[in-house]
């Protein structure tokens, strides 16, 4: 049953203790970053009320911080950053393109429908 014509990519992932140390250091660094971002988000959420002058700024900070967190999780924790470029782009590019399009089209539509209700009653 053993086939020697198939490459076992699973074995490529092995590393020694020395390399492991470096990997663990990165993991702890990213943990600290993710925790700090979460604390910052909660602080902003607690102290700045929705509807205040600073709110639009805070709202966009939330979205940017969330994308930053997501990037760390996908690229470091899920190791997509260490994969080959081809795999990285096959996963990320179509998804991101589609989501950006979907978000744009749906939210625009929702705002227009909301305004129509406000204008013409409901």
């Amino acid at each position, binding site marked *: 049953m053993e086939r020697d014509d198939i*490459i076992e990519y699973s*074995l490529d992932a092995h590393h020694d203790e020395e390399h492991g140390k470096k990997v663990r250091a990165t993991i702890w660094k990213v943990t600290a970053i993710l925790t700090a971002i979460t*604390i910052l988000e909660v602080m902003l959420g607690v102290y700045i009320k929705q509807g205040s002058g600073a709110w639009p700024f805070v709202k966009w900070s939330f979205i940017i911080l969330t994308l930053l967190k997501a990037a760390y999780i996908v690229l470091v924790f899920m190791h997509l950053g260490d994969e080959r470029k081809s795999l990285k782009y096959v996963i990320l590019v179509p998804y991101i393109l589609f989501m950006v399009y979907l978000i744009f089209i749906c939210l625009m539509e929702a705002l227009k429908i909301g305004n129509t209700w406000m204008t013409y009653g409901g």
Partner: protein
Amino acid sequence: MAGHATKEIDAATLWGGKVSPFSTSYGKLMMWFFLVSDALTFGGLLVAYGFTRHDAQDAWPIGEETFNSLPFLGHGYPLMYVALMTFILIVSSVTMVLAVEAGHRMDKRGVIKWMIATIIGGFFFVGSQAWEWYHFIHGSEFGKVELADGSQAIVKGHFGEIENFEVIEAGHHHKKGEKITEDLMHEFQHAAAGGHINGGVITLHDGTKAMIHKKADEHMELIVKKDGKKYSVGDRIEGKDAEKMYYDAIYGGTANKVIYGANLEQNEYGPQQYGQFFFFITGFHGFHVFSGVVINIIIMIGVVMGIYHKRGHYEMVEKTGLYWHFVDLVWVFVFTFFYLV
């Protein structure tokens, strides 16, 4: 032509079941493809949520007004609980990636240690979510009230404790003059929603009529969430005016003037769809967390039995890890769009 071309390319260039252009194993690649499809599902759900929210605009509830409870400490701690949940999930993601790292060094004990930590974190998260749902379903002590002009308002402040119900007209289970001290809040909310409170007199299930003795509320504030003839969305009413309007509504003897908590048809926090999206999205995510915990347990049994050690690599741990990180990733977005923004 095609057949001719195939001969010209050597096996190393052509995948042909031997060399992957992605330089990764079949299993891992398929896990990635599955995660992309699952991410599309969650993306679709969150965009649908965004659609409804932008459509409803000001009437939509604000996270910090809705989620402000902590276990044992009660209300008044906006966002702290979900922040804690987020932190638990991030930490369990970290322990998972440490298990994967241990697997790369063929360190079986390390893998077991970190996977146990991950599973415990997963259980904590699922438990937290159960608590969160319990609170969401039961709601606040005040509920959402429909005011005299037809507008609807949520209520903030400190609810004065109910001391007892003093029976003034006997029913099946209670005698006149008796002071009822059990299950007060539940009876009170049930009667208020059903329109069985008139003036300060509550009519219980068994026909008993009783006076409500209750401590005064403090710092009451009404925040209008649905337009009426006089008030519109975003208006705030405070102090004595708020108390008068609130009790005029719930002590008026009319049913359906107040809503407590949430179910699939209505909720006290905002539009109907808010409750439905909350249940569906956090429920679907919670289901993912639960499946993740189950899969982690299955894989850990494999690790303990030494299956992967014999195989020469711990890629199964890496694959289940990918799924687990994905669950964390989804929560990051749910956290932002449900609770923060």
